């Protein structure tokens, strides 16, 4: 059983619980989903960690995009915006298309960075090109992206479930 199948089972449990109530409402479905989540996380070890990791990642993204907007507002409304722009290559550890897409979208939503292109550098490595509004040291940018995003994504997608 992989995580996707267990999540599907959790959804079915939620729908069944919601359909057996007096009135069919979305909150009935949510109650069934939470109850099913509790039961399944007791049966399958590691499932709870994966789902909570996904929720934690979503909360982290919402927080960082609010910070990013305030930063952009600061640059736009300051009389003389001091910008130091540059494009940095970040070598990728993620392999699948889904992981790459999530990583690129996350980088675009977080403060000061936009992902431009997934390509190969001269050594043939798979790299992501990231545009920075305020750059500083390129190595520091690379280390921050690998530590902040790539490790979180890999922890969720490669975490796996112990049956």
């Amino acid at each position, binding site marked *: 059983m992989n995580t996707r199948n267990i999540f599907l089972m959790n959804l079915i449990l939620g729908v069944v619980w919601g359909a057996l109530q007096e009135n069919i409402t979305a909150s009935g479905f949510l109650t069934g989903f939470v109850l099913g989540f509790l039961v399944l996380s007791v049966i399958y070890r590691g499932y709870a960690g994966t789902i909570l990791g996904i929720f934690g990642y979503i909360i982290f993204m919402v927080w960082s995009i609010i910070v990013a907007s305030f930063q952009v507002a600061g640059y736009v409304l300051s009389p003389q*915006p001091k910008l130091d722009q540059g494009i940095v290559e970040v070598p990728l550890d993620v392999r699948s298309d889904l992981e790459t897409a999530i990583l690129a979208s996350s980088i*675009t939503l977080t403060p000061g960075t936009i992902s431009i292109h997934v*390509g190969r550098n*001269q050594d043939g490595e798979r790299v992501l090109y990231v545009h920075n509004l305020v750059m500083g040291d390129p190595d520091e940018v690379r280390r921050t992206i690998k530590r902040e995003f790539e490790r979180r994504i890999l922890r969720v997608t490669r975490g796996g479930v112990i049956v």
Partner: protein
Amino acid sequence: MTLGEISIVLLSAFGVFFMLVSAIGIVRLPDVFSRMHAGGKASTVGISAMLLAAGFYFFDEFLFYRMLLLIALLFATLPIATSAMSRAAYLTGPIKRKHLNHDDMANDISRKQPTG
């Protein structure tokens, strides 16, 4: 005004402020990539705040969940649109090189060389 109405007005004002920031940003900032920072991030937060306010205003459970789904759709699509635009701008547009202090993408071997 009740407390709910005040919170709706505050949430909408938060959204309107960021939409105004993104509009001023795409006019004021110096080159195409910094304009994308303004147009991509600030407007995502602005729309999400306004849609959330609309979801609270009508006090309808299904409408609220629909607004949450729309916000999820926007969070999935707007970064992709921004990335596609910036890649198109880099590959073809005569971008203002003096604003780029560091450019690793110049030695990318996978991209198509412009012809003609």
